[in-house]
């Protein structure tokens, strides 16, 4: 590993975000004056500061030797997929179905991949979430497919 990639990439990204925010604010919103600030004033200043900070973080990182952090790709994928699938299916397939599916997806990244405990856990979580959100908080959401 040659450079401190975390600070390099992080700083560069933040600088890019800051630059975008500043330019977008200047372009789209009224800046106004110090006395009467327009909606663009504060974001434009913040964007500029963020861009500057990004550079301060990224530039020295080029000369520094860094270490790779192990990225938990599998875990991140399973967790995010579970949430996305849940969001996509909740209103169509219902709370119970989606809880079962999402727990099974989320647990696919667990160190113990056997199906038995995952099914039991899925049923437990489904029971718990129906108890808390449907009966407890009286949330209006379909429980089963085709109820919407």
């Amino acid at each position, binding site marked *: 590993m040659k450079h401190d990639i*975390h600070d390099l990439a*992080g*700083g560069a990204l*933040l600088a890019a*975000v*800051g630059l975008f*925010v500043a330019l977008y604010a200047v372009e789209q919103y*009224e800046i106004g*004056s*110090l*006395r009467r*600030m*327009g*909606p*663009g004033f*504060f*974001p434009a200043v*913040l*964007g500029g*500061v*963020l861009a500057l*900070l990004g550079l301060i*973080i990224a530039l*020295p990182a080029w000369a520094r030797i860094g270490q790779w*952090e192990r*990225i*938990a790709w599998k*875990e*991140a994928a399973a*967790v*995010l997929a*579970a*949430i*996305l699938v*849940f*969001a*996509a299916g*909740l*209103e169509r397939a219902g709370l119970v179905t989606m*809880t079962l599916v*999402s*727990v099974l997806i*989320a647990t696919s*990244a*667990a*160190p*113990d991949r056997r199906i038995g*405990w995952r099914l039991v*856990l*899925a049923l*437990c*979580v489904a029971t*718990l*979430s129906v108890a*808390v*959100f449907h009966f407890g*908080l009286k*949330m*209006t*959401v379909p429980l089963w497919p085709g109820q919407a």
Partner: protein
Amino acid sequence: MSGWEGFLHGLSVSLQPGVLIYCVLGVVLGTFVGVLPGIGAMATISLLLPITYYLSPEAALIMLAGVYYGSQYGGAVASILLRLPGTPQSAVTTLDGYPLAQQGRAGVALFTSMTSSFLGSFFGIFVLILLSGALSRAATAFGSADYAAMMLLGLVAASTIGAKHPAKGFAMVVLGLVLGTVGSDVNSGVQRFTFGQTELMDGVNLVALAMGLFGVAEVISNIHIAERTGVPPRIKLRELLPSRAELRRIPFPALRGASLGSFFGALPGTGSTISSFLAYAVERRVSRHPEKFGKGAIEGVAGPEAANNAAAISAFVPTLTLGIPGDPIMALMLGALVIHGVQPGPLMLEARPDMFWGLIASFGIGNLLLLVLNLPLIGIWVSMLRIPFRWLYPAILIFVCLGVYSVRGSTFDIFAVALIGAIGYALSLARFNPALLLLGFVLGPLIETNLRRALLISRGDPIVFLQRPIAAAFVLAIVALLAMSIVQTLRRRRAQSAKSTT
């Protein structure tokens, strides 16, 4: 209402069954998540935010606060038994708590941490009562410029004090401020950074942001780590009792830690984590046997544990009296209050005495409960450490999704949680602190409003920040902090390059 009348009034509020039950719930849940490494107070409070929509503001705040100080009690358990801090505040407790456990004195270490936490909390409550009245009165003299300067000081302090990379901390704060500008501009009604999404018109959803950054991101990074916990020893009740000589070594370190903690907890930007480290340093300095530290010194457990609990309580001083959160957890609390339509600030003491004193009285009740429940039940809490994380995180995820959905019945928010969770995980990989982002996010709109108002009053003349004595003091402190952190960074860099060339 004087302090004591207020406290008594508060007791009458918080002892109502409908409120008391949430205090109990809060402290029990707080201890639970504090005990478990891999899920902390921050994630739990985010998770509970949507549920508080269904509660009265008093009950909601009392429950959330209970989670916070309850987690400080629980955090020590894993620190002592497994050398695995359950919360960042209890990291110092591993230094002497774990050696004690290895010498078979785990029970005594737990007893010390619980009683010191209790002492620290009550010390913090006294400080809170003493300071809040005076500060509320003083704060009525605060103008917009003073508020803006003070909040800026809070942000600068939080990102620089005790930080290895002040620039990275500060960048997170600024990113949070940027996120805070999303939505309708208060003054002009212009939609900022909504990109045509109607869901963004009210701004980025605090619940989605907090859950993504702390719930989802922490689950991702902990699925693996949290599996590696060892097997905790069994603790018998009799083992808890210290010898008389050991008992004598608790009160003074605890009191020193408590005073240190309540001081630093009340300051903006320095929270309970820093207080506990400072308390440890102080104990080692004043000890006649500094060589015993790190090898199982009771004082090394008592001081820091009292400090972090005192700080957790006194952190409510600026939040409640000025409406300015000093640390990210307080920012979340403030967000919870705003959700309930309560704007904390100098007027709160007069306008919402039930809430103000009820909360303070609940600290007393909650801490008493924690002491009398946790000591006898310590065996149960220890056995919680045997629960593998893989049984918990799927439930956390589902509760995150349903919780954020319950706020306004929109799946957009669940998708937002996934995106924010991915960003939060990336940030933690690159060692950026997402808690600072949240602090900036909550304070952002307040800073902008006060800044604009101050400059409008002064006809656009920024000298107003130096003319008002209060604001000028804060500006001076900001400049001093920035200068200090720049000098420190440069010095460290020089030291590093000297090391790499030789």
